[in-house]
């Protein structure tokens, strides 16, 4: 209840009160404790991380690499048998991340034919991992679930992202208000306090460095944010916003697309931005979203990050985000609930061939559980796996676009570390924000996975640390990582030390750590990628045209946006799924006649 005793305290009394309490504490128990902790610190070689129970998980690379290594010899096509045994689907979706799931969801909504002939689109969804969700997967501890990758969804822009918006409405996460901005589910909106930055030994509110920064640097930061503010509302000659979401909605005006030809670093130096604080902040943001900093990404992506969001909400600030303890795995779960009729295949697709005679795609896959080779047939393919995998699976005639050339796109490796902390002291627990970042660290700080939970106190906290490995070219890093054990030990030490740096003494409370390794996380929007991806994302490669169309391959993965965001994958998947279901409905109608 009440703070009543406080009003008795006059200023003078308050000073005496704090002075006596403070000194008594210092002289009394405090002094000896302080002394002994100092002595301990001097004597100890360093914080002890040896008691933390460490677990590593990573993608099923053995199975994944079957697409190009150890490829099982396809059995001799036995016409008589395979015709009978191969299962037939209208659509095969390859990849069970956000774009694949969105496509499956869109396809599962359409029923056609009449009465006894009524049927749904037959969909097979291939995912080599045992868990769906791609970069939005999660892990769990008895106290809370936690993300392994993507962990939030920002407030949506008003006009675009129609499918994502519809999905959020169906899930009750968004409620439209006539004549007003929509309301979002307040248990999903990120609770305050939101974010803080540890710099020069202190925590400050917000992530833009403010404390201990020279006036000149502050002016530069202000100048940059002025620029952002103007660009956010700027439109090109084509009437589109300079930067929009999904990325394909952005203006094609040369004024903006030319930014895709230079790196962000080049742009900054040309425009005389050189403040360390600003560049650290930009690097932090870009590494967080793209896996690499200003030297790698295009200036277009650099501005898209800041200028593409104009969403407003009735009950939240525009910069708010939706988040859950398990991160975007919560959205994955919600999509999955809608997929009751989709055939889910926990298998890796090793080969897709178009059979000119039967006019179907023949799809060969290896089951993750049994390692057995299976064949299915499908009329249409939705490619919802990373772009670089396609060249190992599809026929060259479908891969003429330059994006499929080796080395064209980069996926930086990532590591996420979920550290379980037992009995965190109340003072630290009360100071936590959702996002907690350390200045000038290779680790991107941590989010508190249990932040959204309703309870007052937590016996365990789970901190999710993010670390993109962007010191070298991803291909180089992956070769160096042949010595995986050393690589892992280094990362463990790095993450634990960062935790201990941000919270001295925390190491003694860290009981478990779940490291997840992402060898290929999200696409990095390097120069030229945006213009390149634009020509392919959401496109349908048809075989035959019009009523003679025999089949199609369409490109749904967020790689074909050049930017890996939930909305990108969800919009492509939904759009292509909807489009295809219309085509299929039409063809079923034709065949029924």
């Amino acid at each position, binding site marked *: *209840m009440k703070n009543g*005793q406080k009003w008795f305290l006059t200023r003078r009394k308050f000073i005496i009160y704090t002075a006596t309490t403070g000194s008594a504490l210092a002289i*009394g128990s405090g002094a000896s404790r302080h002394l002994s902790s100092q002595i301990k610190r001097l004597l100890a070689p360093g914080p002890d991380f040896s008691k933390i129970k460490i677990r590593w998980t990573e993608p099923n690379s053995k199975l994944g690499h079957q697409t190009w290594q150890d490829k099982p010899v396809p059995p001799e096509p036995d016409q008589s048998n395979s015709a009978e045994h191969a299962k037939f689907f209208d659509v095969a979706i390859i990849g069970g991340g956000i774009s694949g799931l969105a496509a499956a969801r869109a396809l599962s909504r359409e029923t056609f034919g009449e009465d006894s002939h009524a049927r749904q689109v037959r969909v097979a969804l291939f995912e080599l991992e045992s868990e769906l969700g791609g970069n939005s997967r999660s892990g769990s501890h008895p106290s809370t679930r936690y993300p392994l990758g993507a962990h939030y969804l920002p407030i949506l822009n008003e006009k675009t992202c129609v499918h994502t918006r519809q999905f959020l409405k169906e899930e009750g996460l968004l409620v439209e208000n006539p004549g007003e901005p929509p309301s979002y589910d307040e248990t999903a*909106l990120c609770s*305050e306090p939101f974010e803080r930055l540890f710099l020069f030994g202190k925590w400050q509110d917000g992530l833009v460095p403010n404390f201990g920064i020279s006036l000149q640097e502050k002016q530069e930061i202000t100048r940059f944010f002025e620029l952002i503010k103007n660009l956010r509302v700027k439109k090109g000659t084509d009437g589109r916003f300079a930067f929009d979401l999904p990325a394909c909605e952005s203006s094609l005006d040369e004024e903006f697309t030319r930014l895709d030809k230079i790196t962000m670093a080049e742009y900054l130096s040309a425009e005389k931005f050189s403040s360390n604080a600003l560049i650290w902040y930009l690097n932090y943001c870009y590494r967080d979203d793209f896996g690499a900093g200003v030297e790698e990404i295009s200036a277009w992506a650099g501005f898209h990050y800041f200028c593409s969001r104009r969403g407003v909400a009735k009950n939240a600030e525009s910069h708010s985000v939706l988040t859950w303890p398990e991160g975007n795995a919560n959205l994955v779960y919600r999509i999955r609930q809608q997929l009751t009729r989709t055939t889910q295949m926990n298998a890796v697709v090793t080969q897709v061939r178009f059979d000119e005679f039967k006019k179907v795609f023949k799809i060969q896959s290896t089951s993750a559980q049994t390692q057995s080779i299976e064949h299915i047939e499908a009329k249409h393919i939705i490619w919802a796996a990373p772009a670089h995998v396609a060249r190992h699976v599809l026929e060259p005639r479908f891969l003429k676009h330059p994006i499929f050339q080796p080395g064209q796109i980069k996926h930086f490796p990532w590591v996420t570390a979920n550290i379980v902390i037992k009995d965190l002291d109340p003072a630290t627990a009360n100071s936590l924000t959702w996002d907690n970042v350390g200045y000038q660290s290779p680790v991107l700080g941590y989010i508190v996975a249990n932040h959204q939970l309703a*309870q007052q*106190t937590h016996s365990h906290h789970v901190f999710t640390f993010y670390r993109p490995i962007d010191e070298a070219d991803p291909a180089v890093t992956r070769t160096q990582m042949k010595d995986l054990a050393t690589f892992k030990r280094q990362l463990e030490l790095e993450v634990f030390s960062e935790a201990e740096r941000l919270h001295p003494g925390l190491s003694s409370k860290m009981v478990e750590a779940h490291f997840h390794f992402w060898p290929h996380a999200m696409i990095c929007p390097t120069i030229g990628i945006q213009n390149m991806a634009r020509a392919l994302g959401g496109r349908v490669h048809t075989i035959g045209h019009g009523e003679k169309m025999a089949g199609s391959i369409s490109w749904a993965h967020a790689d074909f946006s050049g930017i890996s965001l939930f909305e990108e994958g969800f919009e492509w998947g939904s759009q292509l799924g909807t489009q295809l279901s219309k085509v299929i409905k039409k063809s079923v109608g034709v065949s029924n006649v």
Partner: protein
Amino acid sequence: MAWLLLFSVFIISTCGLVYELIAGALASYLLGDSITQFSTVIGVYLFSMGIGSFLSKYAKKNLVLLFIEVEILIAIVGGSSSAILFLVFEHVTSFRIILYALVSITGTLVGLEIPILMRILKDKFQFQDLVSQVFTFDYVGALIASLLFPLILVPHLGLIRTSFFFGILNVLVAIWAIKMVAREKKWGQGLFIFALFTLAYLIIGFSFGDRILETAEASSFQDKVIYSASSQYQRIVATQGKQDFRLFLNGNLQFSTKDEYRYHEALVHPGLASIANPKSVLILGGGDGLAAREVLKYPSVESITLVDLDGHMTKLFKNNSLLTRFNLDSLNSPKVQVINDDAFLWIKSTNQQFDFAVIDFPDPSNFSLGKLYSLSFYRALAKKIRAGGKVVVQSTSPYFARKSYWIVVNTLKEAGFKTAPYHVNVPSFGEWGFVIGVRTDATTGNAQNIHDAQNSYEGYSFPKSLPTGLRFLDLANLKTLFEFPIDMAELNTPVNRLNNQILVRTFDEEWSKVVSH
């Protein structure tokens, strides 16, 4: 030798009286009512001395050994007495049994001492000299003790260290006696070592005596700290002053027995008395059982569910006879079910429905507590209140934290409750605010507070009767609580949401101004 023994009489009697004074003072601190405590403690002490004197006749041989043994025992029991009393206070249901047991043991042992000593000395002095000398030293020691105690010992050493200090004196007398008299005796060696151990124990006790009571903490409270404990969730401190008993959680005053009836009558009755035949009542927070005490004044109430996070708190106010006298043993009523759980999680998961809910959480001084004042929380709460049912929320001071107060009111309104804000003067706190929320069927509440000065607010009508025996509220002054003077009048404020926590920020701003003036 004889004179030294007589000097030991002086020490012994000083120590004896000091133990008696300590017991009396401690009983007054912990139990209040110093006249009763001092009288009973002195009475029991003197009577026990009589028992000791009576028992002394059964001591037949080796009086010196017995004297030394008694001396060491007094050192141990008397020296530890105040530490023991402080430490057991929180754990036992009947503190008095322990108190009087300790007083009797010390008294009996001290009572044994003088007769034995006189018998040891009987050959060294004439009888009339002996009696005169022994009692002179005894009474001089008593005078010294009674002057030292209030003027020097308590202010400088505190009770715990004072008792250890006199324990040390007692054991030094014993050690000296062993040295002088019994060193060559074969029992002397063992006794000497035992005495040294006792000395070491008492010195340790003396050195760490202040730790037992956390002097740092004690010094920040106006009155004597009689109980302090850290539960899993908070620091619980109770103080006993001249006029009242006070409970603090994390340094914040929860109640003073002097005026808590004002707070708790105002918290419960305006809402509950306005409901016809309330049956089920929910109390969130309020682990002290004082709100439950008020609710139990309604015979129609069949069940009270009290949800408090801190099991330590509810156990204390359920079992400790010193505290149950404040809540009239409310937590042990068969109607009351105490649940130790997180209020937010519990309210979301319960299937129960209530006619009335008392929301008595700590002030929103951090982001965790801020959640319990959020729109999401009130919406979850609304689902568990029967249509037409009411809630009342303690909502900080509309005078010291005016904006914070109206944020609570407006958040409750946004959650679909019709609101009736009111306030009361609680001298220990100052002006304090509450708000009644009336559950309506509308999910979004745009209900206006149309003030009908005569009988009601929209959705809320003043009660027609109140329980008998209230000390603060009557039907006439109840209506006046709903009037807000200009300096506390309604403000337009944002709504407190989980994703803005505007209340915690506002509260912090407003109270920090109060503290720094």
